[in-house]
């Protein structure tokens, strides 16, 4: 009896040889490890917070912030609450990210296509752009734009000006500020209505093309639909729009719309840096389309432009979109580098100033991480939806 048991044991027949039991054991060990780690950390945090007299909880959101923010998209004063500052910072992050994504996409596509150009000079130039921009740290580039380019601009009195309306100096860019009078609501409505009609027209034209094969030229009608109704309303309402021009008063400009240099530096750096990556993605995407596709399109009689637009780009987009998504996410995350130059983005306002003033590191850093996580998840969900729409529909 014992001999048999020993033989079995020697062959290695133990409880651990049962894969299911082993899996349960490993997973429960993992669970215990995570739980005890969490328990230990929470205990440490409690004693530390108590010994350092740091308050906890989210009450600070209703406390007066007491600091100024240089760029605010919604009304904000020093007497506003931390909660308000949170929203102001978040909007600033979203602003720079949204503009950055659009511009980086445009520049990136242009550079990517230029790199594939048959013009040797142009393609080499685009190649040099990509290599230089990709191989320098983003923070280096942000500081370069901020300190070496915008920081060395002349003062307000010696501003560079464009047509006497737009001024550029070391305090930022000053542009005329649009003032909307009564009746501009109707113009906005006309813009929306015209655009809606244009979209309906496009859908109808596409359906008709799919059904009958006839191509309807909608270009001019679309342009008219988008432009004419707003223009007409604008005239009828008595031109409800005026501009407040920036004026030099004393040592600084007064009036107009000021774009702070921190915003410009961050935007330039984010756009040029991300565009270099997007250019590589676009190039790879276009190269991934077999030459046969282009040749087939040519032999069908399509011209170069149409071939690109109807045959190459739609297929290349399937290759381009997934990595493009991660570049967009990178751009959003990289916008937090604003902290280095003091652009009041979400990170600088919240994890910087608010953290310094309240000292509630745990809540604030946790919320900061959660917000970036949320923005990332929403962006990638949107891009995944777009990607699914582009995906090849196979039977």
């Amino acid at each position, binding site marked *: 009896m014992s001999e048999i048991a020993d033989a079995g*044991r020697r062959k*290695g*027949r*133990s*409880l*651990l040889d049962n894969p299911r039991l082993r899996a349960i054991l*490993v*997973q429960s060990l*993992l*669970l215990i490890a*995570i739980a005890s780690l969490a328990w230990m*950390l929470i205990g*440490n*945090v409690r*004693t*530390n*917070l108590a*010994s350092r007299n740091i308050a906890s909880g989210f009450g600070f959101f209703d406390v007066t912030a007491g600091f100024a923010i240089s760029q605010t998209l919604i009304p904000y004063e020093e007497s506003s609450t931390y909660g308000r500052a949170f929203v102001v910072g978040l909007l600033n992050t979203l602003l720079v990210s949204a503009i950055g994504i659009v511009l980086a996409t445009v520049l990136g596509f242009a550079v990517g296509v*230029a790199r594939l*150009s*048959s*013009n*040797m*000079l*142009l393609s*080499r*130039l685009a190649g040099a752009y990509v*290599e*230089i921009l*990709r*191989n*320098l*740290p*983003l*923070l*280096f580039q942000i*500081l*370069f734009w901020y*300190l*070496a380019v915008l*920081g*060395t601009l002349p003062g307000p009195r010696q501003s560079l000006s464009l047509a006497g309306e737009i001024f550029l100096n070391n305090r930022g860019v000053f542009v005329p500020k649009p003032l909307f009078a009564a009746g501009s609501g109707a113009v906005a409505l006309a813009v929306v209505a015209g655009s809606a009609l244009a979209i309906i027209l496009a859908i109808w034209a596409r359906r008709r093309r799919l059904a009958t094969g006839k191509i309807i030229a909608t270009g001019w009608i679309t342009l008219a639909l988008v432009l004419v109704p707003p223009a007409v309303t604008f005239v009828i309402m008595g031109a409800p729009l005026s501009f407040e021009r920036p004026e030099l008063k004393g040592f600084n400009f007064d009036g107009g719309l000021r774009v702070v240099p921190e915003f410009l530096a961050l935007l330039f750096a984010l756009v040029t840096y991300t565009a270099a990556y997007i250019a590589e993605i676009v190039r790879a995407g276009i190269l991934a389309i077999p030459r046969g596709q282009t040749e087939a399109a040519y032999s069908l009689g399509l011209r170069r432009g149409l071939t690109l637009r109807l045959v190459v780009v739609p297929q290349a987009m399937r290759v381009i979109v997934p990595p493009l998504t991660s570049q967009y996410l990178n751009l959003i*995350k*990289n916008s*937090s*580098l604003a*902290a*280095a130059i003091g652009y009041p983005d979400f*990170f600088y306002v919240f*994890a910087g100033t608010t*953290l310094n003033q309240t000292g509630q*590191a*745990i809540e604030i*850093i946790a919320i*900061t*991480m959660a917000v*970036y*996580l949320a923005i*990332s*998840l929403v962006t990638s969900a949107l891009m995944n939806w777009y990607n699914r729409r582009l995906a090849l529909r196979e039977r």
Partner: protein
Amino acid sequence: MTGSDRAYIRTRLAANEPPPTRAGPFHAIVQGLFSGPLNIAFTLFSIVAIAFAALPVVRFLIVDAVWQGMDASACQGAGGACWPFVQAKFGQFIYGTYPEALRWRPDLVFVLGALLLAPLLAPAAPLKRINALLFFGIYPIVAFVLLTGGNLDLRHFLIGRLTAWNIFGSATTAGLSWNFWSDYVATAFLVAVLVEVGAALLGARARKASFTALFVFAAVGAVVLAADLDFGLEPVETRSWGGLMVTLVVAITGIVASLPLGILLALGRRSEMPLVRLASVIFIEFWRGVPLITVLFFATYMLPLFLPSGVSVDGLLRVLIGVALFSAAYMAEVVRGGLQAIPKSQYEAAEALGLGYWQTMSFVVLPQALTIVIPGIVGNFIGLFKDTTLVLIVAIFDLLGQLRAAFADPAWASPVTLYTGFAFAGIIYFVFCYGMSRYALSLERRAAVAGGR
């Protein structure tokens, strides 16, 4: 090949064609650059762009630059780079405020690293295994001792913390505390006994398990021992580290520490155990979803709150922990790519040979997967190298941080100081990153040739 079965046979010779006149390099240039109005516009645009970007850079860096001088007065009216500024600040850019008399230590670390790394990177060099062991196993300890001065001054291990174990008082030999090391050895044997009993209860091979535990303790102990020994080196606080040295320390530690963790996470993400998979996915996606700067803030402001009271961790070490966790998540995704590229038949063949999970992974799957993803790892390293600049936001002065500090020096205030500093740092960053990306590219080409892909 008689030709009788062909449908068409030419009976007369074709007329001789005139020699090609529209060929040769000149024609290629004309065709490539001036073949149409759009192309001409592109060419003109490129020429203008080069004239406006490249020429001033060359003039600034070389032609108009000031090469000699003792202070800012030499550069006041200069139209080009002020190289004496870089010369004067060179030590600061490379070492930060590391004591000048002790700078031979970082120098030695640089040289040793280069000597070990070069043959590791060259695909043709022999003795890869020993080389890798030296670089990943021994070199970090040597670098640690040389840079910090070693002599950790450890007092208590596990038992000492949990009980009032303090038999030897503060007696030390060669910088080693008797309390700590006797505690360590006792703990090791205690754990080994516990492992043996636990394994025996489960019916596993108990003796082997306890020896494994002892071996792990011995290996870790050897590392800690080396770092704890007093070699008579003067200690240098990490606060006085800076410049390129910190950049390299953060990047290399980050990548070396993230590799094992990344491999474990990648394996966890592909595990069949749902809890393990879930934990890995949450970990990876969390760190990938947040910006590095929040991770650095987490490490700087939040981590101290998580530690037991009385324990304080060095500022640079905190950042290193944050960077390692962050890059482990990215590393996991790179390794996962390699794991997915290994065909199922490899796993099946390993299983058929009777290999267990860890044997399959360490002898069959991982060696192949890691070879595939070396370019990806290098790419990760380039990203990390660039991202180390972010540490300046948490007041650790790497190359970029030292640069910024140097700008504030009134002794070197001149109109060209800013541009000179950016040019110098830019060249350093570019040389490192571009070199590494070329290296990754050459590896990819090599793999493509070798694998016939």
